[in-house]
């Protein structure tokens, strides 16, 4: 819609204030950036200012744009990290070019091939790859698979399935055999333990039967179990009077 049509429409005329200051709102908006930069000609600047004062839409628009610009002016430049240049230099000249080589010219010659392998030779990728290879080779070794055997493998699906089934049967039989052996060993061990227990019980019974006979043989004069007493000391004490009562009662001699 051109400016003439805009003016002809009474509804738009009320909104745009086209007739009052000689400037339309759309023109005002176009001039807004230049006006804030202060590069408008005196005539345009006067028309712009007049429209800003008279228009209820464009006046606040000017205020807001000016305010936003002032807010942005408060932002100061920040200092980049000190190691930034060194990091960039390390990432470009040192890492991507041979020592002493021309950084850009030499690289442009190799550009066709280098990016393909660049990712591969990054340390993280190389580490992951080597770990995966190590894990795979370890698994194959444990499973008893040899790399040289792979050349002899028939890769037809049916043959492959049979081979897998055969391998599975081998592994299963080995596991079952191992389990059976372990069970036999455990059974033998438990039998030996039971025999030992039975032998120990029989010995104890025999000991109990033998003990009363020994006691009968020894008799009452056997003092082997008593502490040794001095014969003179006990004889002296048997006839001595320790205390005697003086009452009518019969004296008690100890």
């Amino acid at each position, binding site marked *: 819609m051109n400016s003439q049509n805009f003016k002809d429409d009474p509804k738009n005329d009320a909104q745009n204030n086209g007739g009052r200051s000689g400037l339309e709102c759309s023109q005002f908006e176009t001039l807004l950036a230049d006006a804030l930069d202060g590069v408008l000609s005196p005539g345009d600047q006067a028309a712009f200012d007049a429209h800003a004062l008279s228009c209820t839409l464009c006046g606040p628009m000017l205020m807001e744009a000016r305010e936003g610009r002032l807010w942005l002016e408060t932002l100061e430049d*920040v200092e980049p990290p000190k190691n930034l240049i060194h990091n960039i230099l390390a990432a470009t000249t040192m890492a*991507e070019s041979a020592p002493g080589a021309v950084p850009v010219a030499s690289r442009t010659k190799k550009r066709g091939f280098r990016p393909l392998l660049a990712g591969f030779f990054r340390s993280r990728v190389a580490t992951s790859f080597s770990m995966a290879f190590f894990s795979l080779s370890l698994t194959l070794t444990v499973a008893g698979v040899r790399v040289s055997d792979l050349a002899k493998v028939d890769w037809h699906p049916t043959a492959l399935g049979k081979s897998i089934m055969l391998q599975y049967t081998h592994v299963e039989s080995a596991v079952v055999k191992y389990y059976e052996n372990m069970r036999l060993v455990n059974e033998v061990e438990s039998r030996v333990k039971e025999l030992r227990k039975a032998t120990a019980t029989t010995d104890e019974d025999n000991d109990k039967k033998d003990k009363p006979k020994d006691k009968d043989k020894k008799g009452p004069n056997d003092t082997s179990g008593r502490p040794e007493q001095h014969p003179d000391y006990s004889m002296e004490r048997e006839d001595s009077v320790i205390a005697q009562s003086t009452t009518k009662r019969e004296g008690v001699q100890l």
Partner: protein
Amino acid sequence: MEDHQTGALVRKCLAGDAVAWEGILRLHQRRIYNLCYRFTNSPDDAQDLTQDVFIRVYRTLASYDVDKGAFTTWLTTLTRNLLVDHFRRSKQDRVTDSIDGGLREDDEAPSLSDRLPDHGPSPDDHLASQETQKIVRQALARLSPDLREAVILRDLQDMDYREIALTLKVPEGTVKSRINRGRMELARLLSRNKRQVGSK
């Protein structure tokens, strides 16, 4: 003047002068870092992106025609493309980060409006205030990418409209319109938060 100096450095660099490359870095790294920082509002992201920009410059320097255009515009275009890529990668995160999202993110933390000064908007009074800068940075980060890159290139990078139009690959009129809308949106955002403080 800067472009003339850079042009000579680029020629030397293409001829195999490694020192010239460091010269280009020293001449432009601050501006590129600030551009990235204003766009991402993150020092870490800005550092990574600046590094990516110069790695890409290093790889594609041979494609730059010294006689064709200004090195600054070429470098800014390259940076802007990387920033757009970065924005697209992190778009999912930003979808939830609406303009008022920051106020809802953490009810315990002081909101943007809490940290705004109580009196009227007078940026000159707070020119040196780090807190004000932080608030403005946050508000700037919440503008839409189109408006943000336009105001950053104009008001923070001091590029002229023609250069911005070349960088963004849009007509100058669109550039001016985006700049105006970006400034207004920023002012509205900051004043709206301040009104919320007044109503509490």
